[in-house]
């Protein structure tokens, strides 16, 4: 078999990379905010019998238990029938944000719960309010503990962002894979284009992994997250 790669593909793929990166970073950022709120509600929202806890739990179960593709099409195709119009980029961003928020909520919950209970008690004993204790003592520790699972989630979402190619039809809203599909559909060089695009994704994963490891090392504190040096 002879393979054909055309350098003319690259500028368009580069455009796609830009959109993929945007989509991923936006959804991770927004998802972190929503996820942190949901995670806090699950831990501090008044226990199993409070309505707030129930709403948060139902949300998390629904978005973790159903396919992202169903969520995306429900938003992109379903919402307009209820009179709410959303473009492909916004639909993609919305679906990915709502989805990752549910996963991130669980990471936040886990991280918050793995902060030792004595920390809250010591903060309250100093005269801090609950909110102050959460803000100054619990969250700074939880945020460091959450970096490894959050990094995994970022890479998952980077890859999952390719599903917006199922909705975007115009070039300016195409993500990396959307661009690849449109190139391949024109020249029938499916294998070459898709292998190339796979390498693009691998490169992005590699860069993100290295960058996040660096961040993790930068903010590391002895005795937190890593096995402590003991006493």
């Amino acid at each position, binding site marked *: 078999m002879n393979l054909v790669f055309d350098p003319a593909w690259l500028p368009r793929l580069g455009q796609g990379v830009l959109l993929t990166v945007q989509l991923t970073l936006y959804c991770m950022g927004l998802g972190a905010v929503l996820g942190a709120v949901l995670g806090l509600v699950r831990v501090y929202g008044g226990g199993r019998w409070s309505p707030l806890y129930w709403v948060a739990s139902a949300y998390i179960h629904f978005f973790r238990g159903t396919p992202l593709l169903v969520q995306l099409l429900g938003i992109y195709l379903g919402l307009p029938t209820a009179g709410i119009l959303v473009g492909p980029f916004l639909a993609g961003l919305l679906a990915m944000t709502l989805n990752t928020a549910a996963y991130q909520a669980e990471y936040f919950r886990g991280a918050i719960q793995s*902060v*030792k209970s*004595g*920390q809250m*008690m*010591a*903060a*309250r*004993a*100093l*005269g*801090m*309010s609950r909110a*102050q204790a959460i803000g*100054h*003592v619990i969250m*700074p*520790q939880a945020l*460091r503990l959450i970096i490894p699972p959050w990094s995994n989630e970022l890479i998952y979402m980077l890859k999952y962002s390719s599903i917006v190619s199922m909705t975007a039809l115009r070039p300016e809203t195409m993500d990396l894979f959307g661009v690849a599909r449109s190139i391949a559909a024109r020249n029938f060089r499916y294998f070459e284009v898709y292998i190339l695009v796979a390498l693009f994704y691998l490169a992005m994963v590699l860069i993100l992994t290295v960058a996040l490891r660096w961040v993790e090392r930068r903010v590391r*504190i*002895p*005795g*937190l997250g890593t096995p*402590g*040096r*003991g*006493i």
Partner: protein
Amino acid sequence: MALLRVENLHKRYGHEEVLKGVTLAQDAGETKVVIGPSGTGKSTLLRCINRLTEPDQGRVWLEDTEITSRRTDINRVRAKIGFVFQDFNLFTHLTALDNVRLGLMKVRRMPRAAATGRAMAELERVGLAAKANAYPAQLSGGQQQRVSIARALAMDPKLILFDEPTSALDPELIGEVLSVMIQLARDGMTMIVVTHEMGFARSVADEIVFMEGGVIVEQGTPDKMFRSPEVPRTGEFLRKISDLYGESR
């Protein structure tokens, strides 16, 4: 008037009543040592005083503020009562200096520079100024406990509660913590100390309180408690605990 008054305190966990009506009073400058077998409500008593544990019944006053009243801003009261935990509970993500400084800045709203000065002075007092930038995991247990005492001292407390401050320490580290506490008592700090360290109790306490089964069995000066206790059980416990932990540390 006493600095702290505890009146008929009750607390139950499920079916077990841990405190069955404890009453005591503490004057300013006094050091009270609470002793007794484990599981008899000593720690619960301390936690009920600043409502880290909510008592079921009974009242607590700090001067003329009723701590147990629903209308009292508990956070303001807690800022005036230091608490030293058995397992230190230093904030894991903060250096020794930041541990001592956090309460000053966030609860007492002190400006950063002033808080730093005060925190350094307290670290100096417990002999750890050189470790100001170390994280808790980089300190020995004894050092961690001394930082946690500095953290309590920095808030200018009217009273410090010590909940078995040396129980989690290796034997060779107990001395450094006790000597800080002894110095505090000599400086006139008001302290309630739950401990098994009989040497400390004997030499520093103004009053020893013997608790068992959720009630105060007997209280009095160390002299009275060690030489001529009124209740036979007190003498029995003191002999046993002195054998077990030694008396002269």
